[in-house]
């Protein structure tokens, strides 16, 4: 049995494939029913059986209510698909599991496939990735490694190209599949490949072109020649009159689209209200409707270059993958817009699964890798250490053997027969120099024998070392991972960055120390600290990013009271498959808490979307008012442009029916998030200006006060604070400015609290408030204060003021909200 995973799966929106890495090459398993490499990701629920693939697709036209496709686009959402023949609606995870189970049946070698590398778009977030893993689990896979599609495609290309051609450099992978678009910047250096950055749209792909064909050619044709129909309410709504026809037309539109890659015109034929309808579409008509989405993809290509300070000349090529890149217009348009040569020499439909299989050939199976769990008759455990990739002609191999080794021998054989250690005595520690075949995967067999040359069972039988083969240096995080902390000063919360976007996984954070912003009494009801883990740009507001999970430390779990200010140590880990683990340690009570998040669903409800869009408009309006008041015409102009875009979004959101069956609401949700981020960016740049004003104000006040009545020590302290001002003033750095403002405030008040005039005024103010609490002790303190003023004993007066302040009823003190309880 192989120790490496070997099986790779491309679980695509439109089509899925499975392949295996066998002795250095990839074998794609054909669907035994159709003898094709690809199988449609479509599931049909017949009365007593479930069909997957081409057979399921065959029913799409006749029985659309029981056939589902394109569910990958809804992975990680709470959306489910109502099925006529099934009592319960089916979730995208369940449907994906059916496809995965079907793919397993293509392997007719009798092997039990329990591990696989499954590809996901680079833009898949934690929730979507976990949903994919859940589907694999439901399909019976015991261990799954996720691989980003652009890396898979690049690996396939790298393994096909000769090593001479494939040297260090950067390139882009443009992957336009059935339902998702990804563009990734990939770099290869010293034989290691990694994604530097990516950009994508989880709701843009060939399926959208199919929908555009219906919207732009078929619906207008029907409206003109038959009856007036509406795309949203008659076709896309689940209760729409022609919802069944919509699904059938989607299928026909896809066929037409494919034909237009080879022909200059095609026809779509269908039956409408008993009449035969024929709609003719030319290639240029089709190119007209996809121009805008393709321009959008080119825009993403440009933005990834700008963000990484690259020009088209810095890149070797753009690798085109995904079925939609067969469209000639896309090939020529992308080359023209990006000014980078495109490479189309790998099969865009099988590139990803081939890359997944190559990667699988280098990944050890988790179940077997754990030697401790292995049981065998001999009780021999071999723990081997070797480099999986090497650039040297020989590679050292070490192993430690536990168990009874006397009278036993071992032998290491390279599978091409070119290397053989011969029989050697098995000892507790063994070492060998292994000769490697250059530029190749070197597969070795490790066999243990007794003194009669009978094989002896151990946990370690095979291993592989790749010589001069491109490896994958880990996958990057698609977005920042942050935690939410209270900002008591401003009665709000803010994000603290834990892992920046593009951190290579797996990753572990250094310990982050936070403080409790309020006390939590042991055993009190409904009180807790919340460690909110979020995914999204850390410079934005917590409300505009996605929630991954919350580690809740309830009061009932505490073994002693947690006091405000107590330190909590937090540690974070993200696995290669993007499980997020949060560990918290409370020093004060010596307690540790840990939770692993594998969120699998994201919910988007039409009414929530409409409400959010409205609230975004309100937010823009209020900021616009503020900008008007401050005479900030530039911000006002920016906000007006954004308001127009949000207005358009609102119109589209309001048109959606509550039971819309398409992906439009997810597209609108993403669009809403994008606009919300733009609003934040505009406002935040102004926030820096406001902080600058605040900084110069307090600096001036502080400087005046110190000049008037500060000590030498105060002067020195003031100089220390404002030293290196140029570093945070130009360009303004909001976090540093905020810190400096805080330090200047502290200095200002420390000087002020020594001023007799200020102390007297403060005392008089408290005496006026005192009516709130006229206990004897308060009265005594007031008398002492008055004496202190007469005696000019201002040190005592300061102490009295503090004590009086502490005795004021809580409700009269300024109340500051703590949302999470940590800051």
């Amino acid at each position, binding site marked *: 049995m192989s120790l490496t995973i070997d099986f790779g799966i491309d679980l695509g929106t439109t089509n899925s494939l499975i392949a295996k890495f*066998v*002795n*250095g*090459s*990839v074998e794609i398993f054909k669907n035994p029913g159709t003898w094709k490499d690809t199988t449609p990701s479509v599931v049909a629920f017949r009365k007593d059986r479930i069909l997957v693939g081409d057979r399921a697709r065959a029913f799409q036209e006749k029985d659309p209510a029981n056939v589902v496709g394109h569910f990958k686009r809804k992975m990680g959402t709470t959306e489910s698909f109502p099925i006529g023949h099934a009592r319960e609606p089916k979730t995208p995870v369940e449907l994906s599991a059916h496809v995965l189970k079907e793919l397993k049946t293509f392997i007719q070698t009798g092997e039990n496939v329990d591990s696989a590398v499954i590809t996901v778009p680079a833009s898949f977030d934690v929730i979507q990735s976990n949903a994919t893993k859940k589907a694999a689990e439901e399909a019976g896979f015991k261990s799954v490694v996720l691989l980003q599609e652009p890396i898979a495609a690049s690996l396939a290309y790298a*393994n096909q190209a000769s090593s001479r051609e494939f040297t260090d450099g950067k390139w882009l992978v443009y992957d336009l599949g059935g339902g998702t678009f990804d563009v990734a910047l990939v770099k290869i250096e010293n034989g290691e490949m990694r994604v530097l950055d990516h950009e994508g749209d989880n709701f843009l792909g060939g399926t959208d072109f199919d929908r555009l064909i219906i919207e732009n050619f078929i619906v207008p044709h029907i409206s003109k020649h038959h009856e007036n129909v509406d795309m949203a309410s008659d076709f896309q709504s689940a209760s729409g009159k022609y919802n069944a026809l919509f699904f059938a037309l989607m299928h026909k539109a896809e066929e037409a689209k494919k034909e237009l890659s080879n022909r200059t015109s095609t026809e779509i034929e269908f039956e409408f209200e008993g009449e035969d309808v024929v709609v003719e579409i030319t290639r240029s008509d089709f190119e007209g409707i996809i121009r805008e989405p393709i321009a959008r993809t080119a825009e993403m290509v440009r933005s990834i270059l700008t963000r990484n300070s690259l020009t088209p000349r810095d890149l070797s090529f753009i690798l085109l993958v995904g079925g939609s890149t067969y469209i000639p217009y896309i090939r020529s348009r992308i080359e023209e817009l990006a000014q980078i040569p495109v490479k189309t020499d790998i099969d865009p439909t099988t590139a990803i699964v081939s890359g997944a299989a*190559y990667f699988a050939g280098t990944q050890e199976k988790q179940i077997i890798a754990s030697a401790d769990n292995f049981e065998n008759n001999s009780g021999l455990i071999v723990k081997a250490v070797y480099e999986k990739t090497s650039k040297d002609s020989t590679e050292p191999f070490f192993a430690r053997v536990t168990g009874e080794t006397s009278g036993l021998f071992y032998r290491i*054989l390279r*599978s*091409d*027969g*070119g*290397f*053989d*250690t*011969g029989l050697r005595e098995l000892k507790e520690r063994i070492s*060998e*120099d292994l*000769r490697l*075949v250059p*530029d*190749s*995967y070197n*597969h070795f067999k490790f066999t243990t024998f007794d003194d009669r040359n009978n094989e002896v069972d151990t946990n370690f039988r095979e291993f592989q070392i*790749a010589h001069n*083969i491109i490896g994958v240096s880990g996958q990057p995080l698609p977005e920042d991972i942050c935690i939410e902390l209270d900002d008591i000063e401003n009665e709000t919360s803010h994000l603290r960055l834990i892992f920046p976007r593009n951190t290579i996984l797996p990753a572990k954070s250094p310990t982050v120390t936070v403080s409790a912003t309020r006390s939590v009494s042991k055993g009190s009801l409904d009180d807790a600290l919340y460690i909110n883990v979020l995914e999204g740009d850390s410079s934005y507001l917590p409300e505009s990013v996605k929630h991954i999970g919350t580690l809740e430390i309830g009061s009932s779990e505490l073994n002693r009271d947690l006091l405000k200010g107590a330190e909590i140590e937090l540690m974070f880990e993200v696995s290669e498959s993007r499980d997020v683990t949060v560990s918290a340690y409370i020093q004060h009570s010596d307690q540790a808490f840990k939770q692993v998040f594998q969120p699998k669903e994201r919910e988007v409800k039409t009414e929530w979307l409409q409400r959010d869009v409205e609230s975004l408009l309100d937010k823009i309006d209020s900021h616009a008012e503020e900008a008007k008041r401050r005479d900030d015409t530039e911000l006002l102009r920016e906000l007006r442009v954004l308001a127009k875009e949000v207005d358009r979004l609102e119109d589209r959101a309001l048109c959606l029916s509550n039971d819309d069956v398409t992906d439009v609401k997810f597209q609108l949700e993403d669009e809403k998030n994008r606009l919300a981020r733009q609003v934040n960016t505009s406002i935040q740049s102004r926030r820096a200006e406001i902080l600058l004003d605040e900084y110069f104000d307090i600096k001036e006040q502080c400087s005046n006060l110190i000049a008037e009545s500060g000590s030498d020590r105060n002067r020195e302290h003031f100089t220390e604070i404002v030293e290196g001002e140029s570093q945070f003033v130009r360009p303004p750095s909001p976090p540093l400015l905020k810190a400096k403002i805080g330090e200047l405030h502290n200095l200002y008040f420390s000087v002020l609290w020594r001023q007799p005039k200020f102390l007297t005024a403060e005392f008089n103010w408290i005496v006026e408030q005192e009516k709130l609490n006229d206990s004897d002790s308060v009265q005594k303190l007031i008398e002492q204060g008055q004496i202190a003023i007469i005696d000019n004993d201002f040190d005592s007066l300061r102490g009295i003021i503090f004590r009086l302040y502490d005795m004021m009823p809580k409700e009269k003190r300024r109340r500051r909200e703590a949302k999470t309880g940590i800051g």
Partner: protein
Amino acid sequence: MRTTSAGDSAHSGIVTILNQLFALENKVNKLVGGEALLRNLDRIKEQFEAWGYSLENPSGQPYDETRTDCDASIAGESTENLVIIDVIKPLIRYRDGMGSIIVQRAVVVVRDRNSL
């Protein structure tokens, strides 16, 4: 073991040509002014590489008993620090994806490095 012999019908014809090519290359190397011919021989070898066959001359490489890609005759007394001094037949591999199989073991003469 994925080693096939030269008699393997799928490869035998090509192995024969490659052996001739190797012999030719050795002769050309000894010719005065043979460089011009070597370029043509290299082109032929490149074409075979494109078809998956590669020819390896292990001359000068270290040899020990773990090397089963060579059939060696040991010259001299010592069996330590061996190095390949003469190649009678080259090592021929057939590349299968990113792995390879040996279609002909090299036939070599080895000798103690220190006795040279």
